[in-house]
């Protein structure tokens, strides 16, 4: 019953999507607004029926309706309700349904928000949404159907992969999907603008907030993924440059570039083709990411369930790339750019350089990700590209990016005068250089980290210095104190100050990455009872093992007492979980965080003969916590950008 409701909803939604694709063609031929309304009803219909299908699948999962194959594969009777719901995105079919659901929610909001505006473009926007939606619905409805039934009905299900039984299952996939799907909005507007031939800034201005929203979800999704990897997987790392991770990260790069370069278009009417290309690339990469993870063409440590959908995703990717770039090439005459760069020392050129760096990073990561394919096609041998490649090519690029983050927001548009440069950058440069010198004298002797931390200090000091100058002006003009001044500055220019807060968040994340990449230490030891291991300022004492039978697995837990600079920090319990269906045990690492460093304990083995002996790996990773704090700062900055604050008239800057 649930299965047939679900599946027929998908089919009906698919038909609605087809109508959505056709309606603007009709609307374009007839003057009547009646036909335009058809497009909106098509979106509404998709929204209702996709929601019905999603609710049906969730209901099936929660009520453990094992007649549905997807439910049987992704839950068991013992699965808590919490993980039954997350089973919606525990495997391929449900993930696609979630994707489609988010997509159509976005489409619905867009159709509603712009119901009175963009009369010419909206039918085409809806058509683009409907094309994407029809593709997903077609895949869900006819290829990898989440409502496929199974007979005889199994008594119990197989359940989620044990690694997915984690609280982050609730956040990481939906956040990332929301980020991916959110990029459809600017893409749809860009395509509509190209089709209609209205290539002024309207589509850019309308989609800016949507892009910021999508960007935020992409950032959050990737960060939560890193956090999950760090605290669950028990290898002490948060990023492995695995193809699947790269697939999630790659759209972030053109999206970030786009957010900066559209400012150049708004201000200076430049970079129109470039912006269209960026958003096409960003959107295509979201489809590419799904293609990569689900087709299995590149080997990954992430064991995703793949299905027969790879070929269809590739076909859709081809359609998107050829269609949108073809359209762009066709319309290029309308996109002749008027102004040119006045000077290399200007905000435009800083943003342009930022774009070049981001796109270079994208290119190198893309190349590294598909290199195994290239090498096999060309040389016939399999190779894998690992972290050393990615680190050595991306670190210099990201350092340039950090530098630009300090320069870009402060430098003048058009042509920065010597006076402007001196006023904005003299003090920040002096402060950060002396900070770097202090670091060098104190501890940091290696070039790259020293440069990194100095540049990060430069960004922070330039932001603080600029804000301080603005606050001084506010005090002079309106007599406002610091807090009042900050509020009124922000209300006058939300985007600017929100953006600066986001930059501070990025600085914190980079600081965490730089610290943990360069100054981590680790030690292995096999300890007898009450033996200790010293690492950095820490001492770890082994105080025994304990085994217990859990509902789904057998758990062996070690008790280790941690001392920091001699003071007792309590007992921590890293564990190994033995699942009967897994070849090797799954580790449960533990860590204690402080603002300066994390101590991270992994139980890597124990003696079956001698219960009083355990093998332990201990890592000390500096500054990691700042990555997560940076994530919250970015969230705060995004809210400043987007929140309705009763905008005041901006003061000229």
């Amino acid at each position, binding site marked *: 019953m649930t299965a047939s409701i679900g599946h027929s909803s998908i089919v009906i939604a698919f038909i609605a999507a087809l109508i959505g694709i056709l309606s603007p063609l009709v609307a374009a031929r007839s003057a009547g607004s009646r036909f335009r309304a058809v497009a909106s009803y098509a979106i509404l219909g998709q929204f209702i029926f996709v929601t019905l299908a999603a609710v049906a699948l969730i209901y099936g999962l929660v009520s453990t309706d094992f007649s549905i194959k997807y439910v049987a594969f992704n839950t068991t009777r013992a699965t808590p309700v919490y993980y039954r719901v997350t089973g919606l995105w525990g495997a391929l079919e449900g993930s696609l349904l979630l994707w489609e659901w988010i997509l159509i929610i976005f489409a619905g909001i867009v159709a509603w928000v712009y119901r009175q505006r963009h009369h010419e473009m909206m039918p085409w926007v809806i058509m683009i949404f409907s094309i994407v939606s029809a593709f997903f619905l077609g895949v869900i409805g006819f290829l990898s159907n989440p409502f496929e039934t199974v007979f005889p009905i199994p008594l119990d299900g197989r359940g989620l992969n044990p690694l997915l039984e984690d609280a982050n299952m609730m956040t990481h996939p939906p956040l990332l999907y929301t980020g991916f799907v959110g990029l459809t909005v600017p893409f749809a507007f860009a395509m509509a603008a190209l089709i209609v031939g209205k290539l002024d800034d309207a589509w850019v201005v309308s989609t800016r907030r949507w892009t910021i929203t999508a960007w935020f979800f992409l950032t959050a999704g990737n960060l939560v993924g890193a956090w999950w990897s760090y605290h669950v997987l028990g290898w002490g790392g948060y990023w492995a440059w695995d193809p699947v991770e790269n697939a999630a990260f790659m759209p972030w790069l053109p999206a970030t570039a786009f957010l900066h370069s559209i400012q150049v278009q708004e201000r200076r009417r430049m970079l129109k083709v470039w912006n269209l290309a960026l958003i096409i690339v960003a959107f295509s990469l979201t489809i590419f990411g799904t*293609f990569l993870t689900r*087709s*299995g*063409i*590149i*080997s990954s440590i992430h*064991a995703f369930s793949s299905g027969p959908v*790879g*070929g269809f995703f*590739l076909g859709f*990717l*081809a359609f998107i*790339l*050829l269609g949108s*770039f*073809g359209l*762009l*090439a*066709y319309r*290029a*005459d309308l996109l002749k750019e008027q102004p040119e760069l006045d000077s290399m020392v200007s905000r435009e050129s800083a943003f342009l350089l930022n774009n070049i760096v981001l796109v270079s990073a994208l290119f190198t990561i893309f190349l590294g990700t*598909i290199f*195994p*394919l*290239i090498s*096999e*096609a060309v040389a016939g041998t*399999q190779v894998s590209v690992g972290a050393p490649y990615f680190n050595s090519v991306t670190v210099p690029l990201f350092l340039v990016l950090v530098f630009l983050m300090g320069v870009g927001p402060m430098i003048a548009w058009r042509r920065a005068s010597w006076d402007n440069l001196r006023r904005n950058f003299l003090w920040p440069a002096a402060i950060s250089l002396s900070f770097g010198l202090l670091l060098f004298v104190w501890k940091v002797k290696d070039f790259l980290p020293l440069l990194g931390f100095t540049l990060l200090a430069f960004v922070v000091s330039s932001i603080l210095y600029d804000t301080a100058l603005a606050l001084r002006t506010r005090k002079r003009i309106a007599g406002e104190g610091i807090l009042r001044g900050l509020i009124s500055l922000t209300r006058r220019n939300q985007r600017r100050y929100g953006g600066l807060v986001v930059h501070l968040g990025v600085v914190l994340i980079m600081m965490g990455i730089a610290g943990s990449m360069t100054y981590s230490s680790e030690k292995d030891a096999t300890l007898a009872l009450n033996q200790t291991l010293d690492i950095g300022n820490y001492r770890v004492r082994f105080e025994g093992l304990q085994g217990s039978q859990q509902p789904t697995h057998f758990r062996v837990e070690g008790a280790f007492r941690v001392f920091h600079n001699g003071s007792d920090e309590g007992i921590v319990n890293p564990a190994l979980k033995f699942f*009967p*269906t*897994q*070849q*090797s045990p799954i580790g449960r690492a533990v860590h204690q965080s402080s603002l300066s460093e994390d101590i991270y304990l992994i139980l890597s083995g124990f003696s079956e003969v001698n219960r009083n002996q355990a093998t332990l790996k201990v890592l000390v990773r500096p500054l990691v916590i700042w990555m997560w704090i940076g994530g919250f700062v970015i969230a705060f900055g995004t809210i400043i950008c987007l929140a309705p604050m009763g905008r005041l008239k901006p003061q000229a800057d």
Partner: protein
Amino acid sequence: MPVRRLIITLLIIAPILALLAYGFTRDAKYIKSPLLAKPATPFSVTLYDGKKVTLEDFRGKAVFLNFWASWCTPCRAEARDLEAAWQKVKDKNMIFLGVALQDLDDNAKTFLQEFNVSYPNGRDESGKIAVDYGTWGIPESFFIDPQGRITYKHVGAIRAALVLSKLDEAAKGIASAQEGRGDYEGAR
């Protein structure tokens, strides 16, 4: 001139798409086993009837070594074929040995009873044998010649006819150049 731009666009995009399409013609997880025609790593295993055997004990016989688990569906699919093959060769100079991976003893014993398996079977207690033989999906089968050299490897369910012909080859010391494949279940 839109046509020229369109052609340039196509020329950039097409190779990328072609490369990705090429990806379908290969299996990214497939790595050719380096074990073929190499000496089989020695191991010992405790059988479910309590006896302990080592691979050395079978020197001079053609050995069929099968990794399986009671929870693995393709293992069920091949179980009757294996037993049938065993019935045909058990009086010749050949031996079958089953090794269960990541399994609970009770489930494994029930499985053996269900399919009336009569050749020796034991459990890979530490998982070390599976690692030595580089198994990454089960069932996986190895054919070892009387000199203790691996002659053939099959990933996934195997049919009785193939077991018999490859055992004959093993008895004669003929090593295959390629491994075979059938239905399998990932174990990692």
